[in-house]
């Protein structure tokens, strides 16, 4: 197996750099590859032939990426379904879903949160944290979880902070329109929506996301 070490490293790097496959999953596939290599060598194949045979049997890294990504989409679908059901029940229990829907306010809150996260952690780590939590439920190494959890903790605080900022801005606009009582209702509704969106995103997205990520922690052996 000594002669394959550098090839195995390159193969592993290629697999992990495509995304979709976690380090512990790559460990498992690497073991599979080594077993196939050993079997091929035992059967009389030369090093080149054994490598070709083993990789063909495992599937190339693109195929593996597709297979593992497909698996994640199923879990994402079930999580999105959970959100949809929650919002539907909320809409049915009140005056209707349209009451809560105000796209500019949602975008303002989302922009404040994402801006804060990207400033703190960069786009790459933020994206990895969100996809690690929402797209899969397979076990994850503790080191990776500990690296990604701060994104959710910060996101939670940012969501509440963005609703506070939104309330302040909305109140400032409200103060500017005090002379026009007909616009007071609109201003107060905006204030309430800011708090609502901040609370929903904090509790349903980041608090849940943090727990989903934590659920993926590999048990101690």
């Amino acid at each position, binding site marked *: 197996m000594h002669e394959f070490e550098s090839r195995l490293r390159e193969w592993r790097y290629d697999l992990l750099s495509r995304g979709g496959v976690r380090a512990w999953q790559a*460990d*498992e596939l690497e073991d599979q590859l080594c077993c196939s290599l050993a079997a091929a060598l035992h059967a009389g194949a030369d090093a080149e032939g054994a490598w070709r045979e083993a990789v063909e049997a495992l599937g190339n890294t693109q195929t593996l990426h597709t297979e593992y990504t497909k698996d994640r989409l199923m879990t994402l679908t079930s999580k999105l379904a959970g959100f949809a059901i929650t919002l539907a029940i909320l809409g049915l229990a009140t005056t209707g879903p349209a009451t809560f829907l105000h796209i500019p306010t949602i975008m303002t809150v989302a922009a404040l949160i994402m801006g804060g996260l990207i400033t703190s952690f960069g786009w790459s780590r933020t994206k990895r944290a969100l996809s690690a939590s929402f797209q899969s439920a397979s076990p994850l190494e503790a080191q990776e979880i500990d690296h990604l959890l701060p994104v959710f903790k910060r996101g939670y605080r940012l969501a509440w902070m963005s609703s506070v900022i939104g309330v302040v801005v909305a109140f400032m606009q409200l103060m500017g329109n005090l002379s026009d009582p007909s616009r007071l209702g609109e201003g107060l509704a905006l204030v309430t929506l800011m708090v609502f969106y901040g609370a929903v995103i904090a509790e349903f997205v980041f608090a849940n996301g943090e727990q989903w990520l934590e659920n993926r922690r590999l048990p101690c052996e």
Partner: protein
Amino acid sequence: MTSKKLVAASSEPLVLTILSHGESYGYAIIQRVRSVSRDVLQWTDGMLYPVLHRLEERGLIDARWDCSEHGRKRRYYRLTMKGEAALAAQRVEWESVNATLTELWGVSHA
């Protein structure tokens, strides 16, 4: 060559049955399937692992890490009680389908 749909549909009962005989790992499971099916069922090695992970998420199998003879980390899987129940249920379904098809094909050849 067996159709992809049939290979996919049979993967779960095959894995559960192999694990019902004792703890095993990916490569050994694939070799067992190949030898029992006389190479009729040809899984790409990498396809097995998402199946194993889904079964694990559903609580039908359990896993633990150990070291292989090649010095790599190896994951061993075993059937849980819930997995045994699921296997029993799937076995009834497959035997029912098999019996129906055998009856129909038997009648058409008569």
